[in-house]
């Protein structure tokens, strides 16, 4: 049984392990005990508070697996930053096209430039996604990724109208970011990993201190640096496809450090937001798993938010039929409301273990 729930301070060890094992290492999920402890405490506090304007909150969720003997383990984590630039600006490169045309030479050539942008400071950010390798390409992966959106759907006041996700960018076989080598290194004079770590753990104000205050011309990057603009790390191709399926689109922004693609969507256009339905719950001993489409189901608690993947078993009167175990996991009784959204079928995906 897999369930997504808010992270608590007791999840720190598991979170540390997931941070250390993330592929590639994530800026926004540093394996730094104090930072992660703060984050978990902050997340719990934010859930307990009434919030009507999104700010510095980071909501941390974990994917908990319970085996047949009832032993629970944390196998994944994912977060939402309520407002990417609430505390400091959130920096990205925005790709723009300038047309350089000369009548005299009879040429017209588009020239791409990268402009430092704070535009996505005003977006909510899905971030810090790390999953135990055993659960990759299972329904559990999509459950963890999308459960956050069912939370967002229920608490629009806690989030911005635009949701963005930064995909880790391309790294070469040596684990080096060609984009960093072609851009960042010239200004930061450090290795990508160092900066990534500093940005994750400490303040990012150094970005403003060293970056040039004007756009960069893409033709002046190295060939490999250019190719990494808007790229996705190969370990995240499936994630990007899943997010596009959810309603995210490629944005004009790329990551400041590795040139990775940023996906973006108006909150209301996400499948999990506009495609979800509330249903009354009916508990049924036997819910046939294999005949139904899978749905993500969430309760309407805040601090005790729970989300699972289960059969999309609707009665003719619109009740959603839950097995007793699933109902217990969601802490729902017959007659209570459950939020459901269908999970599109994927051929290559295996059932949750």
């Amino acid at each position, binding site marked *: 049984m897999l369930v997504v729930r808010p992270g608590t301070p007791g999840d720190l060890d598991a979170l540390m392990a997931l941070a250390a094992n993330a592929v590639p290492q994530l800026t926004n999920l540093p394996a730094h005990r104090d930072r992660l402890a703060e984050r978990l405490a902050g997340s719990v506090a934010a859930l307990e508070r009434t919030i009507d304007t999104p700010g510095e909150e980071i909501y941390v969720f974990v994917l908990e697996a319970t085996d047949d003997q009832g032993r629970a383990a944390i196998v994944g984590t994912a977060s939402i930053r309520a407002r990417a630039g609430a505390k400091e600006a959130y920096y990205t490169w925005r790709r723009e096209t300038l047309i*350089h*045309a*000369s*009548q005299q030479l009879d040429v017209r*050539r588009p020239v791409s430039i990268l402009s430092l942008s704070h535009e996505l400071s005003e977006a909510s950010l899905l971030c810090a996604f790390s999953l135990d390798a055993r659960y990759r390409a299972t329904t559990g992966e999509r459950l963890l990724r999308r459960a956050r959106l069912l939370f967002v759907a229920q608490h629009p006041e806690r989030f911005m109208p635009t949701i963005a996700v930064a995909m880790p960018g391309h790294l070469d076989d040596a684990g080096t970011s060609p984009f960093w080598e072609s851009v960042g290194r010239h*200004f930061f004079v450090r290795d990508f990993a160092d900066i990534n770590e*500093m940005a994750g753990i400490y303040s990012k104000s150094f970005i403003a*201190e060293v970056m040039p205050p*004007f756009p960069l*011309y893409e033709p002046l990057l190295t060939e490999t640096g250019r190719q990494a603009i808007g790229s996705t790390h190969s370990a995240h191709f499936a994630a990007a496809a899943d997010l596009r399926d959810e309603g995210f689109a490629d944005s004009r922004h790329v990551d400041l450090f590795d040139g990775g693609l940023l996906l973006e969507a108006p909150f209301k256009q996400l499948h999990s937001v506009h495609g979800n339905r509330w249903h009354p719950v009916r508990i049924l001993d036997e819910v046939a798993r294999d005949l139904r489409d899978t749905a993500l189901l969430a309760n309407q608690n805040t601090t005790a938010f729970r989300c699972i993947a289960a059969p999309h078993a609707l009665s003719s009167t619109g009740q959603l039929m839950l097995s007793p175990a699933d109902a217990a996991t969601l802490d729902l009784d017959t007659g209570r409301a459950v939020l459901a959204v269908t999970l599109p079928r994927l051929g290559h995906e295996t059932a949750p273990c």
Partner: protein
Amino acid sequence: MLIRPIEERDLDALHAIAIETGEGFTSLPDNREFLAEHIAATRAAFEKTEDHPSLKDAPDLYFFVLEDDSVDTDASAADRIAGCCAIEARVGLDVPFYNYRVGRLAQASKQLDLNRVIDTLFLSSDHTGDAEVCSLYLRPDWRVSGQRNGTLLSRVRWLFMAIYRARFPDRVLAEMRGRFDDADVNPFWQSLGQHFFPIDFGDADRLTGLGQKSFIGELMPRYPICTAMLPQAARDCLGQVHEQTQPALAMLNAQGLRYEGYIDIFDAGPTVEAYLNDVKAVRDSIEVVAVVDAQAVDPGSPVTLAATMGTCASFRSAWVGRLPAHGELAVHPDEAARLGIVDGARLRVLCD
């Protein structure tokens, strides 16, 4: 040898020089029609009187030739022309005059323990309205050590500007050819220009020479360029001159023109510049009265550069073989004839 304003009859000579100088000399393209217009334009400038209303704000071109008066007058006119030089009174008024200013962008971060400056190229038209000395060329046959023909071509422009000071603005510049590698490739162009101009360096340079510069503004990168993003070979070109240009640079430096951080947008060669009144030859040149004297033969070596002070169109300049004394300069009748002066004429002279 004498310097005088170019005339219509010099077209053949100018064309010959244009062919001889080839691509490296962009202000003189191998294009007879263009050169004829060039001459017409410069004649109009020379013939303006000193009270002409546009004298103080026109982009006038003053183009001079070096004529060898020892060559038989029966020879074709082209065979008497040994070189040329020019002054543009005000650049950038017809079409923008661009260069890059190599600015310094400070980077300081306590967190990164970083404190340094990055050279950054800012597209600039800062020299709009300044005078430019340009188009200096001495034909190989006249590159004779001791004759000082190159010095004559270079310095005459300072005398001219000193005499007709009102025709010129406060500041003057010269653009020097940039550094090329052994394969005649300019690494700066390779790293920057070629990404923006879909033509090769020679074509870009040629169009610029023809005055057809509008493509530059249209295709140029408008945002500053951090040189940190350019390869080392390109960075090594910033403000560096072609080795053949070293002597010209040395001559301009000696006059007080300095590199102030402006470079050519194509080859990164330096712009050297000065306030006209601060130029050594302008400051140090003096007015004297010519005393024509048949006995004035010694020492005869080119020590005093003399220029006439009559009408602009009748300007002449040449070496005189002795130094002035007490406000007078003894001039041999041959020298007087060369300068087109009579006894008692005023001259502006520059001595070593």
